[in-house]
């Protein structure tokens, strides 16, 4: 915001409060109400406002208090913003940010992972970081991108992840996956809050002499097909891990990409470890069973290894 005065942020309780998760803490004091705008409760109206402001040369950042509430502002994102460049040729630089995912026993309406809705919509980019370094670099890239970007922040990681973040401005390219861990036997393709689970599982699996490669997708749409195919060809055994539900999730698309382009390299059927097709439950025993974890990954990886 210091570097570019066309950047402003709007949403609910992001000003004086600094956001429900303190993601915007301090910005109000530094940039004032003009650039850090607390809105009424009107996700539809401020999602649409972002498009109009972007058309007029600004770079809006919209915060949804929870990814669950993005459905209330869905229409202007998927109808106007997503289709605009295809129809009208104007760039539309907007970042729609939201705390995303479960793991905090917050129940069905504060825990959702709705990335597949947006990945299925042409014209949007969908980004989900897995660590503090990438979060900053990807967010700066998203702000500078000429397209509408959905930026989901795994809220489980807000508190559980610590990591060095350079104070200078830097970017992490959108659309590029990261090899979070190199390995040779099994590829675990994942993103967001499941990356630390995959890495923990990979460490456990080394005790059984199983070497895992962990691919952190970082951008969910458009997918980094090259990295996905490279790891599939390298190991021949692919496990796809995501926190979102299984049916019509991102994992299905990744499996299809591999089946269509690298089937002959596979030594076992592709495996998916995901949440089941239910709403996100509240009670800890239920949510713990709902949300995939490193134990599930270890179990599935062993099945895959010994296939």
């Amino acid at each position, binding site marked *: 915001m210091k570097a570019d005065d066309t950047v*402003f942020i709007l949403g609910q309780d992001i000003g004086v409060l600094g956001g429900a998760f303190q993601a915007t803490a301090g910005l109000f004091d530094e940039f004032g109400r*003009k650039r850090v*705008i607390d*809105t*009424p409760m*009107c996700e*539809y*109206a*401020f*999602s*649409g*406002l*972002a*498009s*109009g*402001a*972007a*058309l*007029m*040369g*600004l770079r*809006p950042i919209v915060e949804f208090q929870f990814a669950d509430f993005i459905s209330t502002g869905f*229409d*202007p994102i998927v*109808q*106007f913003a997503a*289709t605009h*460049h*295809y*129809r*009208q*040729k*104007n*760039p*539309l630089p907007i970042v729609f940010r939201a705390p995303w995912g479960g793991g905090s026993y917050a129940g069905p309406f504060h825990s959702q992972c709705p990335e597949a809705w947006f990945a299925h919509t*042409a*014209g949007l*980019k969908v980004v989900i970081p897995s660590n503090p370094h990438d979060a900053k670099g990807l967010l700066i890239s998203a702000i500078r991108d*000429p*397209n509408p970007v959905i930026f989901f922040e795994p809220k489980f990681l807000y508190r559980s992840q610590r990591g060095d973040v350079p104070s200078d401005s830097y970017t992490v390219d959108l659309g590029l996956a990261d090899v979070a861990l190199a390995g040779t036997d099994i590829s675990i393709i994942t993103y967001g809050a499941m990356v630390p689970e995959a890495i923990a599982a990979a460490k456990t699996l080394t005790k059984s002499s199983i070497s895992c490669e962990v691919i952190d997708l970082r951008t969910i749409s458009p997918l980094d097909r090259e990295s996905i195919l490279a790891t599939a060809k390298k190991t021949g055994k692919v496990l796809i891990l995501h926190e979102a539900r299984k049916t019509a999730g991102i994992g299905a698309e990744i499996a299809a990409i591999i089946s269509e382009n690298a089937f002959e390299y596979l030594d076992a059927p592709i495996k998916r470890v995901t949440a089941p097709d239910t709403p996100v439950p509240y009670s800890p025993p239920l949510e713990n069973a709902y949300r995939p974890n490193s134990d599930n990954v270890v179990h599935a990886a062993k099945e895959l290894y010994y296939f």
Partner: protein
Amino acid sequence: MFESDKTDHIKLLYWMMLTRAVDDRSVSLAKLGKIPGTIFSQKGHEAISVGAACALSEIDVIAPMHRDLGAYLVRGMTPGRIFSQAMARVTSPSQGRDVNTHGMGDIELGIIGYVSHLPQLMTVALGAAFSFQYRNEPRVALTFTGDGASSEGAFSESLNLAAVLKLPIVFILEDNQYAYSTPSKYQYAITDLVARATAFGLPGVTVAGNNVLDVQTASTEAIDRARRGDGPTLIKANTMRMEGHALHDSAKYVPTDLLNKWREKDPIVNYKSLLYEKELLDEQTEKSLIKQIDKEISAGVLWAEKSPFPDPATLTEGVYA
């Protein structure tokens, strides 16, 4: 092409006649099978779109809907580009990717192309107004919507947000008494939709939507207010949709006597009579207007018909900027 002279009666008449001429020719072209999609009739709405657009300055921005052809024309969208959009040609504002008045935007002309989801463009227009306020520019956004769309949540959200942020925006609600086949009595229970403005703390004004001078006067006041930094206004313009929702719709559900009553209030016929009465128009001027419009329409159709269709090889281009 842009006309800001408020007192230029001949120009107002010209824009309304041109709007109707483009509309009429579009219907003919559709009947000849030259339009793959459909056409949304403008008949009855000409005074609203022309009157409001003529009240704006060149620096302002409009976000029209599908019955505001007049506003597009006033802003400088040529009949040729409008025909090429309907004919799905690559030379059209959407390069053949969007249908009729949808997606017929041109930012250079200050026109934001709309999507079907009324009143979504109210929210987009809020953003244009926000950017003017943000940069301290003396510019105004003006958007149109309808009686049916006023029942949507986004309508209320937009009025509220505009009032809270005191944005330089004018909302024009074209109450044409029917949302597709649904008459007003099944659309809202209040007596007058303009009361929605008061409910959200902004001024509401009702105008005779078939009287171009009334529309222009009310729009000018609201635009001046917005430009002064005094916030948004809702203008409700009463009119009647004189044809079906779109080309396919015979609108048999509209009572004939209602249509007959409103036929008497035709915005162009009545304005012409007024100008004759005030001796501001003579036969020779009218004839030359008709001639000029015929020429523009013919040239536009010719240009559109000569324009190529988009190449299927470009299908996947431009999803991202």
